[in-house]
């Protein structure tokens, strides 16, 4: 599967909108070696097709080989959300977001005993000495 077909496939899945970039507008191609080996013969040439035909071909693949499609979709999605342009779009949603987990981490307000301590008083447990044989009749009355 050549790079143009890979990008065409990624663009069908992730076409972009007014905030998020189209997949091919990012550096995703370098990560698309993660695509499963079977995707190329199953999909055939894609980049040379018209836009509607590309979508139809990908839909056909999903219907005919859902497991292969799922693996390919997972690879594309995960690669896309690693891209700096995509992370910038997430941040533009107003959500704190880092490209890597560490070392920075996030700021979250600590547990506030006044607000966060449960006041409901609910909850029960059976002390060891009070454990008794249960009436199991309801089990046999139910249809299996």
């Amino acid at each position, binding site marked *: 599967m050549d790079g143009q077909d890979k990008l065409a496939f990624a663009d*069908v*899945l*992730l*076409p*972009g*909108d007014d905030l*998020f970039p189209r997949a091919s507008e990012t550096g995703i191609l370098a*990560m698309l070696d993660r695509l499963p080996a079977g995707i190329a013969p199953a999909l055939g040439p894609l980049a040379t097709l018209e836009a509607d035909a590309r979508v139809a071909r*990908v839909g056909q693949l999903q219907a005919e080989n859902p497991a292969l499609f799922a693996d390919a*979709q*997972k*690879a594309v*999605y*995960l690669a*896309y*959300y*690693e891209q700096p342009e995509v*992370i910038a779009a*997430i941040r533009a*949603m*107003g*959500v*704190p*977001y880092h*490209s*890597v*987990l*560490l*070392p*920075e*981490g*996030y*700021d*979250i*307000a*600590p*547990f506030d*005993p006044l*607000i*966060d*301590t*449960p006041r*409901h*008083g*609910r*909850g*029960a*447990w*059976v*002390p*060891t000495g009070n*454990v*008794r*044989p*249960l009436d*199991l*009749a*309801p*089990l046999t009355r139910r249809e*299996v």
Partner: protein
Amino acid sequence: MARPDHTDVLIVGAGASGAIVSLVLAQHGIRVVCLDQGGSVTPSEHPHYARDFQWQRQNRWSPNPNIRQAAADYPVETAQSNALMWNAIGGSTNVYTALWPRYRPSDFRKGTEHGMAPDWPISHEDLAPFYDESDRLVGVSGLAGDPGLPPCAPYPTRPLPLGVCGRAMAAGFERLGWHWWPMPSAVLSEPYDGRPACNACGGCSSGCPRGSMAKMSISLWPRAVAAGTDLRPECRVERIETNAAGRATGAVYVDRRTGLREIQTADLVIVAANGVGTPRLLLMSASGQFPGGLANRNGVVGRYLLHHTLVSAEIFLDAPAQTHMGNAGVLVSSQFAESDPSRGFVNGFNFNVARSGHAGIAAIGTFGDRPAPWGAAHHAWFRGHFSRAMVVHAIGDDIPQATNRITLSEDRTDGDGLPAARLTYVPHENDWRMMAYMKDRLRDIAASVNAPDHRITDYVDENGVYRTPAWHLLGTCRMGGDPEHSVTDSWHQSWDVPNLYIIDGSSVVTGGVVNPTSTVCALALRAARRLAASRHATQRDEAAD
């Protein structure tokens, strides 16, 4: 074969229980050698520092050894549940989420309650002081005073943040009139024992290279080694040896760094290799004297595998709630933890309420089976769902069945030519009933928070096979009150081989309704204290003689 120095105690497995037992025994001056088939996972090996951290979780950092296929792993052949584990110093604490709730008293008395499982030979009261001590040793955050459990000591550090999402979910449980409580976790909310507080990176499901979480290779192992434990990584035990008197004499192992087979002799052998690895090793140790495997004259080794009933929901809140930020475990609910046969089943279940993941995980679906739509609808979906997903796991007490078991593969092997494990697990009818009930209650929770969208996963495949992610590998060498139906006594001592102890998740009799590591650690601490005391008594006797 080289013959290193004889030692007092040989421990197989450097996971949570192996770490605790090593630490306690070494602190009492007992010579300990601990062998583990894996190496040390350094902080930089965790995926947290790489942009592809979510991709790594799908392959090299997968908790499933059949996917990961690292050199230290052994295959777990199965057509059913997927056994999850990590084979390295610290064991599965390299990659767990460190939720730390405790068993309840009735968990130890299911034989009395309904007879579909035996009573434990010990009670909650026997274990309670060790829960408290283990919490201090390991470093746990939480809030004492849960009315749904027996009283406990104050936790070493305060509860972790509930955050916007935790408060929203708590409000839902309030609307339902159900119990909820901040989740105890072996994740530090404050600096403790020289380790830093959690910085809310949101990467718990890939472990914690900072040491804020109780990753035993960072938290306990340095202390155990400083106390004198001879910890040997990359040493895969092939079999436990016995003498003509039927006592364990040590173990033959493959030093994976050299490829050479070595032998380590010891006065006492402890197996702590998890609910799959421990029975695997005992079965691999079959001999003319023990043809069915070591400690297995009654055929119980490997049987009664438990890993909990599990149904999960991904519940989307109606506003952004920072669900990708912070530690995994937020709330626990024991509303349905006790048996109530009017529900149509015995035993109970808990809800674990947890945060979800980062953007890629949101797109592929938290459980990996229901991705976001592709095409023009994708980006709108993402805007309406990302950082709003809460995960609720309903975790129930499954019925121990002799047919659910670990055996040895007939044709697959690990990298050293040793037989792979084979896992067989089919839920009991009681478990199916419970899981159906769980699904309805998960829908109740989604409704309670006015979730605009939710997805329930029952882990049943298209052929009706239950293929759950099996984190909690339990019960396969269970303790008991008689040698006919159990592998060890209440102090983890093998009935068949008097100087062989089994101390890990395989020791439990029932699974409870909670993540088991806190209980495994408490059991390990209790057993280690006893072993250390008996060793001192022996030394005193010898001195008096």
